[in-house]
């Protein structure tokens, strides 16, 4: 129940930098998810906080004071692992009691606390079982109860759902979220699964190659990705590298008219959300359009998915989510893809987002549905 600050935290092995100057301020009771592909440095960051990996630079502060020089067993952090890491030789109750025993909590108080934790984690009936007699979901609940029993200052979750099958993931994830909310615990979770991250986080930190790409709420990341990587990692995006001239992006032999107005010229990357694109009849003109030919059309029930060819090797995925029943367009049909300012994101050569000069969502025009 504390404020956790990472201050330009770094880790390098020799010349290879694993975590590069990560700064993060996590408020009391907040749940922050570190998200990124494997090898992005998220787990190393978590292990530095836990104390199992020594930081090469920077600082970790808990309620204002550095914990960098404390060994793991003095940091008062609760840890939950992907592999559960339960003590195989101890019963569920003894697993949960372990941290209290280490702290020298008196027997009566210990038993009361264990009973409370088992109740919270819905494990009362399994108290005397050994871990190997439990299902994966039950084991992870034991791990959670064990970590929470010591009333840690911060809860650290390392891919806690990855070993569970899909059906259980949602359930255990909700359990974690509820217990965390209830106890008002400052929590950091590490995952590579963006759905899991989106579902559980108050705030997300997207990492790549040891660096923080963007920190923000789910909406921040989805609506205003700070880098092409985030645009591609959170939700889906059509990525079109090209050149910006006079409000047009020339990508290969295709030309796209931008919806917003952007200053500057030169190399850029245009990111377009497939679900924010729509199809208009061929020949439609104006801002936020590009002509193309339907190459593939799939009817997926609530969604129609089209792969539209804008030019040689330039293709765009369009997810038409129109509620009205419309006939599926046939492959080979000439169309115009159309979007408004909220669908597009333009990055310059240095992958920094380019500001949109005229960006008024109220100006959204009526899209023409074929």
């Amino acid at each position, binding site marked *: 129940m504390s404020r956790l600050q990472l201050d330009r935290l770094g880790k390098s092995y020799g010349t290879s930098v694993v975590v590069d100057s990560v700064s993060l301020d996590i408020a009391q009771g907040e749940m922050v998810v570190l998200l990124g592909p494997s090898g992005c440095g998220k787990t190393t960051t978590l292990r530095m906080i836990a104390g199992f990996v020594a930081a090469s630079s920077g600082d970790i502060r808990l309620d204002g004071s550095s914990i960098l020089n404390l060994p793991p067993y003095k940091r008062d952090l609760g840890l939950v*692992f992907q592999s559960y890491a339960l003590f195989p030789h101890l019963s569920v109750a003894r697993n949960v009691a*372990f941290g209290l025993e280490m702290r020298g909590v008196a027997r009566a108080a210990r038993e009361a606390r264990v009973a409370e934790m088992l109740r919270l984690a819905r494990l009362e009936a399994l108290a005397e079982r050994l871990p190997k007699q439990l299902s994966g979901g039950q084991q992870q609940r034991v791990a959670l109860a064990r970590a929470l029993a010591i009333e840690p200052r911060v809860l650290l979750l390392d891919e806690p759902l990855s070993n569970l099958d899909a059906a259980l993931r949602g359930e255990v994830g909700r359990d974690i979220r509820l217990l965390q909310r209830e106890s008002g615990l400052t929590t950091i979770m590490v995952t590579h699964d963006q759905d899991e991250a989106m579902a559980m986080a108050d705030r997300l930190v997207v990492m790549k190659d040891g660096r923080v790409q963007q920190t923000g709420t789910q909406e921040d990341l989805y609506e205003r990705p700070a880098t092409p990587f985030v645009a591609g990692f959170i939700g889906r995006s059509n990525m079109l590298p090209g050149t910006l001239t006079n409000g047009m992006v020339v990508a290969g032999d295709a030309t796209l008219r931008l919806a917003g107005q952007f200053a500057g010229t030169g190399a850029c990357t245009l990111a377009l959300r497939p679900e924010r694109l729509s199809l208009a009849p061929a020949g439609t003109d104006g801002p936020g359009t590009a002509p193309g030919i339907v190459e593939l059309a799939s009817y997926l029930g609530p969604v129609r998915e089209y792969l539209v060819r804008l030019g040689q090797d330039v293709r765009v995925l369009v997810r038409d989510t129109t509620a009205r029943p419309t006939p599926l367009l046939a492959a080979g049909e000439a169309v115009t893809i159309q979007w408004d300012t909220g669908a597009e994101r333009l990055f310059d050569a240095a992958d920094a987002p380019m500001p949109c000069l005229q960006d008024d969502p109220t100006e959204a025009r009526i899209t023409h549905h074929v």
Partner: protein
Amino acid sequence: MEAVAAKLPVAYGERQARAATAFLSPALLVVSIMLVAPLLLVIRFSLNRYDPQELMIEAFTGANYLRFVSDPFYVAVLRTTLGVAFATTVICLLLGLPMAYRLARMTSRWKTFCMLCIVLPLFVSSVVRMVGWMILFAHGGVIDNLARWVTGNGLELMFTPFAVVMGIVSVNLPYVVLTVQSTIETIDPRVEEAAQSLGAAPGRSFWRVVWPLALPGIAIAGILCFILAMNAYATPYLLGGPRFQMMAPLIYQVFTNNNDWPFASAMAIILMATTLVLTAGSSLLIPRRYRG
């Protein structure tokens, strides 16, 4: 019709069992010829009577066993053997456990190198290794000269119980390290991290988590070490000298020097039985839930 249906699976099961027996039988044959038959022969010999001229006279007598247990000399040799085996096992475990732990938790490329360093002595005959110890321990040897240089007095370790224990430790240590290491490797390092995150200092986390989980492996390593030490032959012979008596060299001596096969057989059976009883007894020391 019903009867036939009921019979079928039984016949199939029988056939399977017969096939399994057939696969096992060559191994069974080898084991019984190479192991059981000589053992039965030794038991039979141990009940015979020795005669200086006739050597072995067919009999059914317990005199050889009685001779062993009633002669303080032989009982003392058995006691020495047990003492050396215990000391060796304790030292091997004390030295081997930290080594095995470090090795199991190593992830760098040094691990291969360290493993090699531990396995390599197994490629050298134990007699050759003993020659190395002899050079170290002998009068005018490395330790003797070093002690003389430091303290002014020489230190002769050759032909001492210490030399024998050190020699057997050096032979057995790789087995202990490798056995324990393979057990520790099956313990998820995250479990130790969990213990530490819950407030257990590394020492406590070792005793509360690694030790109980590794106990079956440690017990096997200890038993292996004990059995090897009980039956040590070359080391007590070469490093203990003529005045240091352990069972295996003594049995050999009685067998070949005196040609007293019945008594040597009885001694061999006593050594084996003692080892077996203690081995079985030691497994009782391991709490049931850690077993297997």
